[in-house]
């Protein structure tokens, strides 16, 4: 086939990125990813980490899977910065590895999913530069797991104004949206970037025909629901009941959450309406109490999405789900470690740090 293509020249219509290229080697990718998942930190580690001091935690990270990253960066950074950079670098390299070991449809969908890190990086850059954060601080929060390379991102971080950053992103899909940024509407732009990400993700999937795309769509829809639920909880707690104010903040394409119906309800009715959804089991013990911290509600929701991903990865073992399951578990681990690290550094109480962690 390749020989024929070479003889006749490639047909431009076949190059459409909607077509999968190559075949997805599920057996290889899924088993390798499962082996990678077995290397994630077990839940027994976290109570131990909470009892450690910062130096001990750094040493612990140095002796774990993050060893190579810590070693490579030890020349440049030290202390908290070193751990933060090592975690980010490890996350980026792990996702890069996922892209290397997958092909065809799998690879195509994962690339689309990981664009979330491009959005994350753009947000970080805009925030950092707008509030005049030092370049080192911005670099600490960049995760080059998406399409932008670390070199490109560090060049952007060194720019003096946000306008220069936006100009440098001229070639990207986000440019039309970023042009609306005037230095005052950061929250709006961030929201719109999130929405643009999810709508482009749904566009990439198209009409889900293959089994993989159906599972992937389900996964994304659950994620959208969890995000929307978090937003709704925040707004309801703040007493916002106007649909016009709420709906622009809601991401379209959720699974079972009818945001337009939930938006105008007061808090008690909102909770009553949630009882009929699948998410109620996850949040029932904490949602009813109006005094319960939103952090706990949100971490319960995150736990729910992590657990349901794991359940579905057992239901469809040879599919994209185990890989998505690994992606979110890995990012959760990095998030947990960062919470512990930064929490300890800021001298927060252990119970407060513990509430923020999502340990599976």
């Amino acid at each position: 086939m390749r020989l024929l293509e070479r003889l006749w020249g490639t047909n431009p219509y076949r190059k459409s990125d909607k077509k999968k290229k190559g075949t997805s080697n599920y057996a290889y990718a899924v088993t390798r990813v499962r082996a990678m998942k077995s290397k994630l930190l077990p839940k027994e580690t976290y109570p131990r980490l909470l009892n450690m001091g910062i130096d001990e935690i750094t040493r612990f990270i140095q002796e774990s899977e993050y060893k190579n990253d810590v070693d490579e960066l030890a020349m440049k950074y030290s202390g908290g910065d070193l751990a933060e950079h090592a975690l980010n670098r490890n996350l980026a390299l792990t996702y890069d590895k996922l892209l290397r070991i997958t092909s065809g449809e799998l690879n195509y969908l994962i690339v689309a999913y990981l664009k979330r890190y491009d959005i994350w990086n753009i947000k970080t850059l805009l925030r950092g530069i707008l509030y005049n954060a030092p370049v080192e601080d911005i670099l600490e929060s960049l995760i080059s797991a998406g399409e932008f390379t670390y070199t490109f991102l560090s060049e952007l971080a060194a720019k003096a104004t946000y306008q220069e950053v936006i100009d440098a992103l001229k070639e990207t899909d986000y440019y039309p949206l970023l042009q609306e940024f005037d230095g005052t509407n950061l929250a709006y732009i961030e929201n719109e970037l999130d929405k643009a990400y999810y709508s482009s993700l749904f566009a990439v999937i198209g009409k889900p025909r293959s089994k993989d795309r159906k599972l992937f769509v389900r996964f994304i829809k659950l994620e959208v629901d969890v995000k929307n639920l978090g937003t709704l909880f925040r707004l309801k707690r703040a007493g916002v009941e106007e649909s016009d104010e709420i709906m622009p903040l809601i991401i379209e394409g959720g699974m079972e959450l009818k945001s337009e119906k939930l938006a105008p309800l007061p808090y008690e009715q909102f909770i009553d309406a949630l009882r009929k959804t699948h998410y109620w089991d996850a949040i029932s013990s904490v949602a009813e109490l109006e005094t319960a911290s939103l952090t706990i509600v949100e971490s319960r929701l995150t736990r729910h999405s992590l657990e349901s991903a794991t359940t579905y990865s057992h239901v469809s073992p040879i599919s994209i789900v185990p890989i998505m399951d690994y992606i979110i578990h890995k990012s959760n681990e990095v998030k947990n470690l960062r919470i512990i690290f930064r929490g300890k550094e800021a001298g927060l109480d252990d119970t407060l740090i513990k509430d923020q962690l999502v340990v599976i």
Partner: protein
Amino acid sequence: MVGEELVSGPFLDADGMKALGAALAITVTGLASAWAEKEIGTAAIGAMAENEGLFGKGLILTVIPETIVIFGLVASLLINSA
């Protein structure tokens, strides 16, 4: 018909059918175990790339489908000796 004039009797005699049966038994089981081993083999390589300690287990799991072709071999030998 034209064929009837050229070939007298059935297209294959009893020995021919036996040989064909034996060939099919070994061919189909050979292909089946090859396909199964390919799937398990790639999975085993994936696991081994992350954890070298899985070499032994991977090797054993990879050769288990070999039993299929052994059954095929037995079947074809039985057919031939019948």
